């Protein structure tokens, strides 16, 4: 096929990706946007296959079949509560694909491939002219080295993120020296990339890039706690896009560059949104622990004698007379699989004549938008899911707030106590409501390890127990009133 025609069709595919993401700016147009994006993918793949001169279909068909089966099973079986795990895996596969493409390109241009594992390390006679004339060869080599590095660390980093989200890995491990240890690994990997660029025949250096970057991915993510995973998977999402864009530079392929940079910016913007919502810098999330508080806040002092507990039927009586109720969900709701029960409670409250909305903190759950998807699954209309900045001014006119499975994002210390480790973090001002009902197993602290003075306030009622069970009991009691 004519090279210009091929590139023109790639341009069409790129435009379809852009229209696809544009569709995602409104829930109404989102499904169609996703279809347009998928159409773009189909166009790009078909034109690529038509443009190949000599094709050996064995590996192509095998890969497409295996990938389609695995991908469909994952997509259709995954529970909405486990969506962060799915995205973590997909990030990793994206990184892995870029890694293997770059390696394939490297060995193709090198002209010789090792016959055994031992030969992987043997030097080969080659210079950058094999990768392109003059400076182009050098730039192609830099692109290959960077794709390998980013692809490899995205792969292992995402697998660790998956293990943490799935709670297969509960402890946090880290390199001795923390950020310094990681920085040394980054430098070592970059040095290995430089060695490949200077002498492309230095096959051992390429192996070193792969190994160092795989290890780097492990060490970067292992020290980070589960509640910080929204930031990590957003960042790895960005890396997988950047790796794809770099792969586009290796192959001189325009659609890879367009698609890769869109994904790269998407991940970065989400990372930034998450960091702002926690009032922490990216460096602090990746390398820091929560800042130690000036004075240790004693949980007993905060709670002693001041906590009021209530039974679900008492809460039901409050709800019967309420005009406006706001439900604030957190990761605990996902853990308890309580989203359907919560929707039923909201239906029961609305049946008594009150207005019900949901207040969603940007970092509630384990990934950006996690709560929204869960509640959408439970058929809550998306107009009722209200973001933090819009719901906060309404709490003063709210009769009852029900907090289920959320803790730190409602802690008034973030607003009122200067010197507290979470001071400055934007929170949902649930304490401004007339009554706050908190459904929680115990008074145990959240991820920040801090007591929550909200629980001890006069107008707060604690309902202890399993989130789902408590909500179901409230609904039953309310329906009987």
């Amino acid at each position, binding site marked *: 096929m004519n090279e210009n025609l091929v590139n023109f069709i790639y341009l069409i595919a790129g435009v379809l*990706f*852009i229209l696809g*993401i544009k569709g*995602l*700016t409104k*829930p109404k147009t*989102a*499904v169609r946007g*996703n279809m347009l*994006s998928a159409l773009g*993918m189909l166009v790009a793949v078909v034109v*690529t296959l038509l443009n*190949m001169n*000599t*094709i050996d279909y064995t*590996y*192509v068909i095998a*890969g497409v079949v*295996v*990938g*389609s089966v695995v*991908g469909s099973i*994952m*997509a*259709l079986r995954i529970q909405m509560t486990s*969506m962060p795990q*799915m995205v973590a895996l*997909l990030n990793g*596969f*994206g990184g892995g*694909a870029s890694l293997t*493409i770059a390696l*394939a390109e490297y060995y193709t241009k090198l002209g010789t*491939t*090792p016959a055994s594992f031992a030969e992987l390390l043997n030097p080969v006679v080659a210079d950058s002219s094999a990768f392109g004339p003059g400076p182009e060869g050098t730039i192609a080599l830099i692109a290959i080295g960077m794709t390998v590095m980013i692809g490899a660390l995205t792969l292992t980093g995402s697998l660790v993120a998956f293990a943490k989200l799935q709670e297969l890995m509960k402890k946090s491990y880290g390199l001795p020296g923390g950020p310094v240890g990681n920085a040394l690994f980054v430098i070592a990997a970059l040095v290995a990339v430089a060695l490949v660029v200077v002498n492309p025949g230095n096959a051992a250096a390429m192996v070193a890039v792969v190994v160092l970057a795989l290890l780097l991915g492990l060490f970067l993510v292992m020290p980070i706690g589960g509640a910080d995973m929204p930031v990590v998977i*957003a960042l790895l*999402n960005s890396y997988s896009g950047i790796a794809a*864009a770099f792969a586009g*530079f290796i*192959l001189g392929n*325009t*659609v*890879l*560059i*367009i698609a*890769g940079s*869109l994904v*790269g910016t*998407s991940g970065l913007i*989400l990372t930034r*949104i998450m960091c702002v919502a926690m009032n922490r810098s990216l460096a602090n999330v990746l390398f820091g622990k929560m800042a130690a508080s000036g004075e240790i806040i004693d949980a007993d002092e905060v709670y002693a004698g001041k906590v009021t507990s209530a039974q679900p039927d008492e809460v039901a009586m409050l709800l019967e007379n309420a005009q406006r109720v706001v439900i604030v969900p957190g990761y605990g709701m996902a853990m308890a699989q309580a989203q359907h029960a919560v929707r039923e409670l909201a239906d029961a409250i609305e049946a008594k004549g009150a207005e019900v909305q949901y207040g969603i903190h940007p970092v509630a759950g384990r990934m*950006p*938008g996690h709560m*929204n*998807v869960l509640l*959408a*699954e439970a*058929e809550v*209309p*998306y107009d009722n899911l209200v973001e933090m900045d819009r719901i906060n001014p309404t709490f003063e006119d709210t009769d009852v707030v029900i907090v289920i499975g959320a803790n730190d994002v409602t802690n008034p210390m973030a607003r009122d106590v200067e010197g507290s480790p979470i001071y400055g973090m934007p929170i949902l001002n649930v304490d401004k409501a007339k009554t706050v009902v908190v459904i929680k197993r115990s008074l145990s602290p959240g991820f920040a390890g801090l007591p929550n003075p909200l629980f001890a306030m006069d107008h707060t009622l604690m309902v202890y127990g399993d989130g789902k069970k408590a909500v179901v009991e409230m609904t039953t009691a309310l329906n009987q009133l």
Partner: protein
Amino acid sequence: MDILILLLALFVLSLFLGVELITKVPPTLHTPLMSGTNAVSGITLVGALLAAGNDGSAMMVNVLGFIAVTLATINVVGGYLVTNRMLAMFKRK
């Protein structure tokens, strides 16, 4: 060098376009946005096909290509399907 500078221009302009587009996506759709961009990053399938299917390449290159095709296809198929599944749940009253 000509081609390279054009590719670079494309890259930089796409980054700016990405920022403009993504900042308009409402928080309620951030999870489908992530899975949807996972699918888009499966565009590496294009590069993977070239590596896997090129008759006359060394066996090792084809095998690396096979791995790349498999992983990229999981992203494409899994990403679009799961995004569609999620988006279909978002409904108005």
